[in-house]
């Protein structure tokens, strides 16, 4: 079994922490994942969650819904065409989704999870032919909507949250790195 090179491990961790942030089910999980990003921002667990909810969850209309279909298809519904396209991609990647039809397949946390797992298999197990699929997912799907999601979330200065801004910028730079240098500088 190959060991993962240190810089690749960092690259994997970046994806993982962002994934964990968007998949957090409670304030502890959220704080743990946020702390792992080493932001140097001091914030209480509760404030972090309140801000996160205001930006992405609700119950009032969030600043930016974290679902691909909102930015690709109809801005007001989930589970539309592109959601089902992503579902097919997951099936092609070989994943089964226990949350199928419960959480939309194109939820950012789920998509980051798919990306993370594909990257892990490439790095940790050297399965390279999945990389075609990973690149497709990155360039033909994630790059279509995540930048718009980030832009929408960042444009609301009246809800200026340092912590959320940090997360979004991390996500933005991750996407840029992945699409340009493919995370590897050699």
């Amino acid at each position, binding site marked *: 079994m190959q060991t993962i090179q240190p810089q690749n491990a960092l690259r994997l961790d970046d994806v993982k922490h962002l994934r964990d942030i968007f998949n957090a089910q409670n304030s502890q999980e959220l704080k743990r994942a946020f702390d792992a990003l080493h932001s140097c921002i001091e914030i209480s667990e509760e404030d972090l969650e309140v801000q996160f909810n205001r930006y992405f969850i609700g119950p009032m209309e969030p600043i930016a819904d974290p679902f691909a279909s909102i930015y690709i*298809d*109809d*801005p*007001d*519904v989930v589970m*539309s065409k592109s959601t089902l396209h992503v579902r097919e991609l997951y099936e092609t990647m070989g994943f089964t989704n226990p949350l199928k039809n419960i959480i939309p397949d194109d939820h950012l946390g789920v998509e980051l999870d798919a990306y993370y797992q594909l990257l892990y298999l490439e790095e940790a197990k050297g399965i390279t032919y999945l990389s075609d699929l990973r690149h497709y997912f990155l360039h033909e799907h994630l790059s279509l909507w995540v930048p718009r999601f980030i832009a929408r979330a960042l444009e609301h200065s009246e809800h200026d949250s340092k912590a959320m801004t940090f997360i979004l910028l991390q996500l933005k730079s991750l996407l840029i790195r992945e699409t340009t240098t493919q995370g590897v500088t050699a």
Partner: protein
Amino acid sequence: MQKAFLVDGSICLGCNTCAMACKNQYHQDKGILWRKVREIGAEEYHIDNNNILPTLVSYQKAPKAEMPMERFYFSLACNHCENPACVAICPVGAHTKDAETGICKHDQTICIGCGGCIKACPFGASKFNEKMGQAEKCSMCWERQADGKTTACVQSCPVGAIAIIDLHDPKYKEYANASPIGIDYAINAETKPTTRFIHPSMPKEVYRLPKG
């Protein structure tokens, strides 16, 4: 055969069930309605909205019908013309007229978004979808009809104010008006719209309280 919509304004409630049945079936993008319920006598009545360009001027006439506000309606989608302008102008064959049924179909997988049909259709039936950069329109639910069902709008109408008829059936040829009330609808005779209308009228006796 020439399948056509028969629109009965004398019983239409203006309830918009038909317009929403179409949306329920196809999930069109925001702001795009393939079927619209138009209020007779309202200023916008005669202006068809294809979302991007003003409709050809020959169709725009001042409404001649004086009717109470928000009481009389015609439900309009594509007119499945006998001589469709969209089919004539489409450079890639995305618009076709079915030889057997006469339905004017639009195939979005072929559409290149040139906008020709948007400009050519005198009724604004072809809508421009800015997000997709394509045209789209009512295709008389031809897949549903092929499956033995009727169109979503006809199925859903609570009073049967929309029906599908065969214009080539002699009983329908002169049966109803070719123009909705108050507009010279069929003025663009070259396209020969097939939609037929039954005109509404006010109740025979209307008593309103005297002023003062």
